[in-house]
Structures are given as structure tokens and as C-alpha cells.
């Protein structure tokens, strides 16, 4: 190839570049077609598409999401239409999941309950991951004293047992006698889950950042004059986000379970909100006489949690190049 630096005008440069293209296309025509930009993400996607656990979990999650968005697709029965005549009736052709104490259709309520459960799960996950990631990446990149302060701060929250912490927070916020509104109680449940869970995301992000910041490309970016903010959010974040994403998928399932736990204890979502947790909580006194009241909503929670855990596992395997 000619000496490109000695070319004075842009036209010459383009000509030589074009010549290069020509030349290369003659040399290997075949590889031109197969070669498409493949990143970590597209590699992971290719890997995932061939994984049965991923497909299964994705289908389950898709159905549940659909349920949360349009519950009326699955049932035409009003979840708040009580018929006391049918109280505690077992499952039948009429009502597949039977009726609960108030004579509500359990199937209809399970379909409508997906929304509240999923909302709590999604919001709590987003909040947990956001808080955890930001603090984690700062702690991981920062100088040692700030890292120590942030890490100890996270340790304080990590040290609080989840259920105990949530009971304390939610009972403090709501006096036993009052009945908080729907939006308020959802917000409170989401916040208390996030406040008690962010240290996990923070630790994952921090350790990923500690590894990534040793890489030469961080030094190279600094060496080319990139600002610290740019390095952290532009260069580090894409390299550290994978393990946190994996945690997020698993956490989403866990948080749906946490919603059920808190509702069962009577401090989380509560009627008139319809959620799986609320349904389990309502079945509390009738396990023996009407087990269907417990089994169906509990089954939905279990399957949803399982689907997200399976998804998280599959994503983790796909994003870890060493597991291939």
C-alpha cells in the first residue's frame, strides 16, 4: 500500500482506502459474509437461544407478564365479585381454582394478582440494582477511604435480617389501626425491599469494578485524557453490568416471593389490593378445609420465582465466556 501520510488531500486518502476495500474483497470474499460484528451480548444471545431452560423460563415469564398487563385476556370474571353462597367451594369446571372465603373466584384473582406481585418485583429490583450499582461502582473505583466508608455503610444494611427489617420498617410506617392506600403500601413495600437488599447488588458491582479497573483499557482511557466520570460510566459500566444483571433476574423472582412473605405477615400489600401474597395471606386460616386457596397462588409464586432463577442461571452461563 502507498504511504497514506504523504497524501495531501482527502481525495487521495479515500482512493487508497477504497483500494484497500477492493483488495480485501478480492482476497476473501467468503469470510466477508459470515463476519458480522459479534459482541459479548450477541455471543450471549446466540448461546441463550439454544438453551431449553432459557426458552422455558422466557415463555413462563412472558405468560406472567401478559397476565399482569391484560388479566382480562385470561379471565372474564371480576376478581372483586363476591358470592358468599360459594364460599370455600372446591375447584370445579365452573371455577377451575375454586372459591375463597368471600366467594371470590380464585382463578380470576390469581390472574389479576399477577400485576401487583410483578410490579413490586420489578420496582424493587430496579431500585435495588440502581442504588447498589451506583454505590458499588463508585466504591470500586474510588480511593480507598471512600470505598471503606461506602462498604461499611452497606455492611450495616446487609447485617439487618430481611424479614425482621421489613417488619420494623413497615410497622413503623403504618400504625396497626390504619389502612394505607394502594399506591402508598406498594411504594412502602418496594422501598423496604430495596433498602434491605441493595448491599448485595453493591457488593457484586464493587467487585466487578475492582477487577475491571485493573485492566489496561482503563489506563489507556486515562492515558488519552478521559475524565473520571466518563471512565466510570462509559468504559467501566458496560464491562461490569453483566453480573449485576444476572443478580437482577434472580432477585426479581426472590422479591416476588418477598412480597408474598410480607403480605402473609399482614404488613405488606393488603386487601383491597389483589396480589398473590394477599391471596396466600387470606388463606391462612383455611389451609385444611380449603387447601386450594393456598395452593394456587403459592403455585404461581413458586413457578414465577423458578422461572426468574432459571433465567438468571442461563444468562449467567451465557455471559461467562469461561463456561463455554
Amino acid at each position: 500500500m502507498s504511504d497514506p501520510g504523504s497524501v495531501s488531500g482527502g481525495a487521495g486518502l479515500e482512493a487508497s482506502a477504497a483500494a484497500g476495500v477492493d483488495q480485501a474483497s478480492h482476497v476473501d470474499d467468503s469470510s466477508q459474509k459470515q463476519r458480522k460484528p459479534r459482541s459479548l451480548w450477541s455471543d450471549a444471545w446466540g448461546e441463550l437461544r439454544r438453551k431449553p431452560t432459557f426458552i422455558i423460563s422466557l415463555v413462563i415469564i412472558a405468560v406472567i407478564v401478559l397476565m399482569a398487563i391484560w388479566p382480562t385476556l385470561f379471565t372474564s370474571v371480576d376478581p372483586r365479585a363476591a358470592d358468599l353462597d360459594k364460599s370455600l367451594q372446591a375447584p370445579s369446571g365452573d371455577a377451575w381454582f375454586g372459591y375463597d372465603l368471600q366467594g371470590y373466584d380464585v382463578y380470576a384473582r390469581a390472574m389479576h394478582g399477577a400485576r401487583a406481585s410483578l410490579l413490586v418485583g420489578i420496582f424493587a429490583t430496579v431500585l435495588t440494582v440502581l442504588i447498589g450499582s451506583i454505590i458499588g461502582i463508585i466504591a470500586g473505583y474510588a480511593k480507598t477511604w471512600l470505598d471503606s466508608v461506602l462498604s461499611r455503610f452497606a455492611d450495616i444494611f446487609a447485617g439487618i435480617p430481611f424479614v425482621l427489617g421489613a417488619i420494623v420498617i413497615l410497622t413503623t410506617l403504618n400504625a396497626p389501626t390504619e389502612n394505607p392506600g394502594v399506591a402508598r403500601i406498594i411504594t412502602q413495600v418496594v422501598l423496604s425491599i430495596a433498602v434491605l437488599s441493595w448491599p448485595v447488588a453493591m457488593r457484586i458491582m464493587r467487585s466487578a469494578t475492582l477487577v475491571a479497573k485493573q485492566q489496561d483499557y482503563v489506563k489507556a482511557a486515562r492515558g488519552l485524557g478521559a475524565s473520571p466520570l466518563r471512565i466510570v460510566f462509559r468504559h467501566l459500566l458496560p464491562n461490569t453490568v453483566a453480573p449485576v444483571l444476572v443478580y437482577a433476574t434472580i432477585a426479581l423472582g426472590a422479591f416476588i416471593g418477598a412480597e408474598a412473605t410480607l403480605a402473609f405477615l399482614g404488613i405488606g400489600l393488603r386487601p383491597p389490593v389483589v396480589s398473590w401474597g394477599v391471596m396466600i395471606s387470606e388463606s391462612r386460616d383455611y389451609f385444611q378445609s380449603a387447601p386450594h386457596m393456598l395452593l394456587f397462588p403459592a403455585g404461581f409464586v413458586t413457578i414465577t420465582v423458578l422461572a426468574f432463577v432459571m433465567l438468571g442461571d442461563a444468562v449467567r452461563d451465557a455471559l461467562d465466556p469461561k463456561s463455554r
Partner: protein
Amino acid sequence: MEFRTRDGVAKVLNGVSYHVSAGETLAVLGESGSGKSVTAQTIMGILDTPPGFITNGTIKFRGEDLLTKSADERREVRGEGIAMIFQDALSALNPVFTVGFQIEEQLKVRRGMSKADARKRAVELLDQVKIPNAKGRVSDYPHQFSGGMRQRAMIAMSLALDPELLIADEPTTALDVTVQAQIMDLLAEIQKERDMGMILITHDLGVVADVADRISVMYAGRIVEHADVYELFRAPGHPYTESLLESLPRVDLRGQELKTIKGLPPSLTNIPPGCPFNPRCPRVFDRCVTEVPAVHNLGMGRTSRCHIAEEVVARD
């Protein structure tokens, strides 16, 4: 500026001091752990503090001391004034971005170029470092490049802001011999074209002989000899350099056992008293163990930190 001169005087580590002018190549030669890369990273200001602290000294660039500047002012110099090439291009390129993006980013941020202009310039730069089919490869990821191509891409990246001084930290160590030669030729060519100063950090005497104008030989965190490249190869002025040259494989001494320097370089936390090279020096005598040798001026810009530098250079 009319005068594109930059005189950098770095006095880090243990009295390390060198300077580079426009269009000149200084080779910093030394074995692993002699402080070559640390010096380079100190100049760039990308050494982590802690653990690295600069206790005293100056780093002058375009006549101004970089160490007295604010962090933001120093950041301005990086990329535009001084750029650096790393040894392992695979780890020095961000795996999640395309090669093109990594070149374009600087142009967009520092030069305010539009996306299309930056892409055009990135292709030009890749073309300048002789990546075939630059237009097609600009949107490839680093792992899709071969080792030599990655190093070329790395060079293109460091040239994007037209630096006046390029620090190449063992740019060919991770490559095989034929590719090494290509990369060194490329660097030499680009340097000539752009009239850039270059600091070439290496432990490879062969690389040095081809490209460098002057050589600084480092040992245990200090410069033991500094000389013009021809002078150094003709008559080394320090026993360490002498031993290094003797340990090169030579065609005319085929079949004989290769000479080596016995022993290991001293740990930098425990440098022996006197001359740091004294435990391994073939010319050691009593003064070496007690007295740190002063810098001996051997004329023609040559210096050596040896008590008997004059004797060594005279090949006695």
C-alpha cells in the same frame, strides 16, 4: 506554536532523567522490574496514588512542569500532547466497544466532531496504520482482530488527537517476531511523518538498534547509562550495558554457550549499598560496594553511572 519542541525532563524513581525532542526516538532499555513502565506511567500521570507518590522532581512538557498543573490541565495534555501505547493491545482495548467507537470517542469529545466526521477520521487513521479494509473493519470488536492488527488499532487510537509525544510501552513484546518488525517499521514511519517525539520502552536490544536515536539504560530504578545508539553499541560505557550486549546471541559465536548475566536484579525495596549493579558486575571492586557512583560525563551527551566509566568505554 511555531516551535514544536517539547523537552521533557523526568526525574522520577531514583534520579531518572531523560529528555526527548520532536522527531526523536529515545529508547528506554532495561530488564523486567527496572522501572521502565513506571517511569512512562508517571509521565502520563496515570499511576495510581496510592501506591505511587512522586516525592520530588519535574516532568516538563513544552517547557512547563506538568506536576504543578491541576488534574484537569494534566488531563488536557493526555491524548493531545502525550499519548501512550500499551504492551497488550487486547487488554488495552475495551472489549465491549468496536475499534471504531474507541477512536471516534476521543474525536467527538475532545474535538467536537460529528458522528459521521469522526467515523471518517477513524477510517483514515486505521488506514494510516495499514489495517487492510479499514472501512469494513472499523465496526469490528477488538477480539475479532489479530494480535498485530490490535496493536495497529491501538496505535491509531493513540494518534487520533495528534500527540506530539508518543510513549510506546513495549509495543511489540506480546507479538511474534515478524509482526514485531512490521509494527516497529510502522511506528518509525509514523513518527517520521508526524515529526513526533517517541519514547520507546523495551527490553529488546534488537528493536532498539533499528529505531532509536538515543538510549537510556535503566537498572534498579535508575538510569545507568545514556548514549547515542551507535556509540552505545560501539562501546558501552557501563558494565551492565556491556554485559547486556555480550549476552546477545551472535552468529559468529555459534555453538558456544550463550553468555548471561549471573544473578537477579535487586528488589527495589532492598537495593544494595553502593552501586546497585555491584553484586552482578564483572568489574566490581571495593569502591562499588560502599559508594554510589556519580554520573560520569563521557562527552557527546554520553553519561554513565559507573566509577570506572572511562575505563569501561575504552574497553580495557
